[in-house]
């Protein structure tokens, strides 16, 4: 290999450089501008279809008959029906999330302690069943737990139950817990990573009992992850629509059903009232999301 750029190459380079080289700072700035331009379609579409609708909802929640007013919110305060919707949503969501967390924790903990092949299989299976939600799930549950469902009949014949109403609170709790379970499992499984085996051994050497270890070390370490997962599950349940709609044809009173029925469907449409209810739901969800972000920051989870 010979010496650096020969005179001819240097001359060629010079010739290339002759057309006035743009001042570096100016060029960098116009580069940045072009780059920003590239992102415009992304932000445009996102704004049009995510931000704008939200904006419309917020603004119109404060509009009654074309005028600014708090009438919609007052109506919510007056309506026992709407308040029941909120109550139902919250109870249902908290209930199924708690159940899912308990089952998920037990599951995740046990999963870690069994052999690798079964473990990866169950995790993959969990991944796949997390797609089994909404309308398909509702129909599946009707088959097994509907009035003539296989299991309803089985339990009836065993004398365990008299009649099971899948379409009431109990049934919904069951089906909601079912679709929350894979999510809980997948979120909690890595959290147990935070528990290092050494800790248990170290605690044991220092004289701690099994219970002590769990109470003083394991649970405190796991708590942020547990809470974080609970909150994600909660948000997931609060916003769910398809499952309950498909199962009850929109007859069970939860927030999402109420909102949808006020903007589409056959009866009385009131998009502004729907907006007010929506705003409250979003506030609830935003509150829940913010707490989750804050919890994540506080987690003891080592990377």
């Amino acid at each position, binding site marked *: 290999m010979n*010496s650096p*750029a020969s005179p001819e190459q240097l001359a060629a380079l010079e010739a290339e450089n002759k057309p006035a080289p743009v001042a*570096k700072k100016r060029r960098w700035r116009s580069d940045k501008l072009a780059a920003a331009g590239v992102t415009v379609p992304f932000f445009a579409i996102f704004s049009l279809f995510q931000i704008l609708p939200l904006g419309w909802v917020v603004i119109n929640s404060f509009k009654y008959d074309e005028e600014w007013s708090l009438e919609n919110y007052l109506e919510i305060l007056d309506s026992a029906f709407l308040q029941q919707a909120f109550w139902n949503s919250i109870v249902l969501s908290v209930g199924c999330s708690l159940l899912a967390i308990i089952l998920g924790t037990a599951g995740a903990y046990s999963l870690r302690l069994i052999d690798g092949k079964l473990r990866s299989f169950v995790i993959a299976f969990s991944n796949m069943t997390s797609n089994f939600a909404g309308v398909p799930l509702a129909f599946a549950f009707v088959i097994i737990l509907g009035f003539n469902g296989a299991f309803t009949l089985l339990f009836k014949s065993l004398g365990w139950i008299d009649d099971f109403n899948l379409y009431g609170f109990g049934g919904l709790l069951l089906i909601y817990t079912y679709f929350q379970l894979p999510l809980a499992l997948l979120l909690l499984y890595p959290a147990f990573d935070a528990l290092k085996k050494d800790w248990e051994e170290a605690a044991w050497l220092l004289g701690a009992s099994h219970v002590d270890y769990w109470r003083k070390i394991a649970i405190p370490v796991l708590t942020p992850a547990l809470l974080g997962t609970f909150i994600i599950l909660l948000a997931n349940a609060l916003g769910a629509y398809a499952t309950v709609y498909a199962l009850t044809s929109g007859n069970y009173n939860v927030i999402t059903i109420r909102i949808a029925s006020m903007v589409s469907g056959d009866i009385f449409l009131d998009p502004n009232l729907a907006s007010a209810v929506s705003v409250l739901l979003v506030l609830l969800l935003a509150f829940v999301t913010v707490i989750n972000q804050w919890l994540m920051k506080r987690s003891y989870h080592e990377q």
Partner: protein
Amino acid sequence: MSYVEVNNLAKAFGDSKVFADINFSISQGEFVTLLGPSGCGKSTLLRCLAGLETVDHGNITVGGDDITDLAPQRRGIAMVFQSYALFPNMNVIDNIAFGLRMQKLSEDEVQRRVKEGVELVELNGRESHYPHQLSGGQRQRVALARSLVMKPRILLLDEPLSALDARIRRSLREQIRLIQQDLQLTTIFVTHDQEEALTMSDRIFLMNEGQIVQSGTAEEIYTEPADSFVAGFIGNYNLLDQQQAKALIDVETNHQLAIRPESILIRTMSPSDGGNYSAPIQATVKSSMLLGNVIRYRMEAEHGELVVDLLNRSSERLVSRGTALELQVNLDEIREVA
């Protein structure tokens, strides 16, 4: 005129000034090292030369061309990064060929030059390997080849060896220097390791807080430090203030005295070289360390501490803590520093 000339270069990031008035020139084929502690501005200076940062003021000239405002693609400068920056999705050949393909050379020519590059850095047999399959030293050699095949006017190296272990570092050091000398390639090397600077460079620019505090050959910088910073940075100089200088070796000074550890003898060896030595100093051994070919003593004298280096010869026995010894300083080798 020199090959590379830098005049009045200034760079600041927002309110914090990196350097305000850098001036230097480098001859063709010279190997220059920018040496200094972290934060002294050496990497930023290098990146300004490469065009990866803009300068606020001043100009840079290479071979007579003003390149100050040119994009990095057009400066004819190649750079080796500390993190190697090898493209993970390409094997050795494609990495080395990248810049050549950007120049739209014929594929035959590209392959020919890549082959030359691979041979130059001795990576034969690894051409189809991917970066994650190579060791740190091998990756660095790929990065080097990738730069060299571009036949650049200047080669820049930004602490290329810091991430490697000591043995590889030393062998790569020699390899880089040999290649550079063979190719007569003007090279600027950035490091904070004074041993690297001393062993590789034609000249060293020692930087501190955005300024070049001293420039010169390795020998010049080592034996004639310009000030106490240089003396403290390069080597293991003992620095004596006015009082200590007077008390220990009876020398008047207005500033400080810098004394190299190898300039101090232990009295048990009578100085036979006819040098100009001070009167004996009483001291006790505070600690003794075997550094391989050097034994380093920290001696506690009445007016201060002195570091003394002796070659590890069979005539030396490692003396234990607390032993009282007499020292003599070679007065021809002391230097006054500000």
